[in-house]
């Protein structure tokens, strides 16, 4: 593990045990994030992003099971910690913004009450201080503190999401894990929130793991980008480099599948085909049947991780493609 790594994930594998077999949602994932860094994780729906985050934060419930792997946070392996030790770390040292803010917020408690609950669980803070801090974090995400008295159903979808982000920042943790935190926001708000997160990060020094299906969001802020497909990381490296020259065909597909306001109105198709069935253990590359660039050998050989052009790529034809792209 690198000297300054705040988070280091090694060989992490997660299964959902279902009646029709084990769904391997996260498959031998390795990741590293240095203190204050920003790691983006992108991938299609069902590629395992949320499962990976839940496994990192030790929030998985049955039928999910960590089959193998380690999650080192500040030198401790979270996988081996008990629930009471974890509760002590959550919010204070690392916090999680969940994908569905509606499910994560308590529908019968006001925002202010939920923030108070979180504060009180972590030691003695005066009521006045809690109120001050709560107002401060709400303002940070663009919500009028008058809404401390509001219940979740009285907030718009985007306001609920921003309230979740505010709660995650209550304690100035060292690591903030965010699962699609801006999917309900318009572009202007998304941008200003990204700027806020980036600024807070610079000021407070926390690291961020940021899951999104919207690649354009992490393009400007992410240091590192991980592209996930079928439970595996298929491309990992510096964000700018991946944007300017995607090496995995799936990454290239993700970058091209966007409807653009610049373009003529014409019918788009996205990446053809559908995501792999994660119950099956197949021999070759999981993307092969959708890959525009697949050859015969792709369905036979499970692509190993290759180090190329400053990143890691799982594709047996990557060297060929890299040289072709120049």
């Amino acid at each position, binding site marked *: 593990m690198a000297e300054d790594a705040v988070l280091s994930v090694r060989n992490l594998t997660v299964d959902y045990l279902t009646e029709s077999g084990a769904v391997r949602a996260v498959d031998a994932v390795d990741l590293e994030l240095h203190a204050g860094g920003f790691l983006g994780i992108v991938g299609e729906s069902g590629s395992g992003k949320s499962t990976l985050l839940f496994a990192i934060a030790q929030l998985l419930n049955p039928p999910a099971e960590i089959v193998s792997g380690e999650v080192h946070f500040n030198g401790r392996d979270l996988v081996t910690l008990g629930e009471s030790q974890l509760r002590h770390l959550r919010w204070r040292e690392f916090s999680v913004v969940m994908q569905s803010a509606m499910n994560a917020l308590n529908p019968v408690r006001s925002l202010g009450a939920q923030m108070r609950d979180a504060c009180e669980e972590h030691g003695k803070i005066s009521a006045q201080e809690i109120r001050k801090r709560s107002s401060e974090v709400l303002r940070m995400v663009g919500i*009028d503190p008058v809404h401390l008295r509001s219940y979740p159903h009285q907030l718009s979808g985007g306001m609920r999401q921003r309230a979740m982000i505010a709660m995650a920042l209550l304690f100035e943790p060292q690591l903030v894990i965010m699962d699609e935190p801006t999917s309900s926001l318009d572009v202007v708000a998304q941008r200003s929130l990204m700027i806020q997160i980036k600024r807070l990060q610079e000021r407070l020094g926390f690291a961020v793991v940021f899951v999104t299906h919207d690649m354009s969001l992490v393009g400007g802020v992410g240091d590192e980008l991980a592209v996930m497909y079928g439970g595996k990381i298929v491309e990992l490296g510096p964000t700018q480099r991946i944007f300017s020259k995607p090496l995995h065909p799936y990454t290239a597909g993700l970058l091209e599948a966007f*409807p653009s306001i610049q373009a003529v109105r014409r019918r788009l198709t996205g990446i053809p085909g559908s995501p792999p069935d994660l119950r099956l253990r197949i021999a070759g590359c999981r993307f092969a049947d959708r890959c525009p660039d697949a050859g015969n050998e792709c369905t036979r050989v499970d692509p190993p991780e290759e180090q190329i052009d400053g990143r890691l790529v799982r594709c047996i034809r990557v060297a060929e493609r890299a040289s072709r792209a120049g």
Partner: protein
Amino acid sequence: MPADEDLLRAESVTKHFGVGPPWSRRRLHAVDDVSLSIGAGRIVALVGESGSGKSTVVRLFAMLARPTAGEIYFEGRPLSKVRRRPAQLAYRRKVRIVFQDPFSVSNPAYRISHSLLRTARLHRPDVRPANRRAEIERVLDEVGLSPASEIIDRFPFELSGGQRQRVGFAEALLSRPRLILADEPVSMLDVSIRIGLLNLMADLRDREGVSVLYVTHDIASAWYLADTVAVMYAGKLVEYGPAERVLRAPRHPYTQLLLSAVPDPRVVLTLTEEDVGEPPRVIDPDEGCRFRWRCPYAQDRCAEATPALGPIEVGHHVACFVAPEMAPAPSSVPTEAL
């Protein structure tokens, strides 16, 4: 389009909520004086920033809430007169909602057939009980869920987010609605699934003549899909007109800002210090344009009176004092693409 061809028409619709401590009497203006119409077989995109009142409009149109003031007409009849249970049921059959969060669309404890059968029972008296399953499978097929006979017996967690959202559309379609109110139906979904659902909405319009109110914060998808675009800011409708005009030659400064911020994944976003805007004041707002705090063109008169929505060219309406005096925006959009 003449008013009598409108499927749904809102006239000066307003919705206020009480906020803060009960004694404070503060009022949050979620929707203020909104007038717009949805033609038969048309897709209207409703765009605007978070908290601008889009979902509240949807709830009002769906009769899940009553307006504080104003009236909504459906097929020419005022909704305030739809009070008896059978009439409400008939309205719920013709106007269906698809919600944003595919993770909460269906109850996780039941197979998806459960809620679909209930909808069929409630809204399709014409289908005999023995034929309900076949009808549901037909609709699942129509929204691209195949094999329908197998999908129908799945649990929600056995479906992907995009598939779950399609189930939401299937449930809406099952009652053969005239209007679908789709509240950010694709925002939680990734691009390739998103495109499939956008195409589905276009097909419903083209093949079945269904109208759609498509609520979104994703301008690019509004451009891809909509005939008409309505832009909301802080509870007010600020711009309204044909998609080609509103998105290609936006006249309201807020629409212009929105368009200038549209991300293009191929262009790396550079972050600047600009525009970490204050949230607009919607709690007991003063007189005046609500965008003036962020508007680069604001003048004294913008604080003195509230601009009303008015025509700036045929069919294209803007609520701004300054816009009529300015040339159409140097839109970020290249015109040769037209």
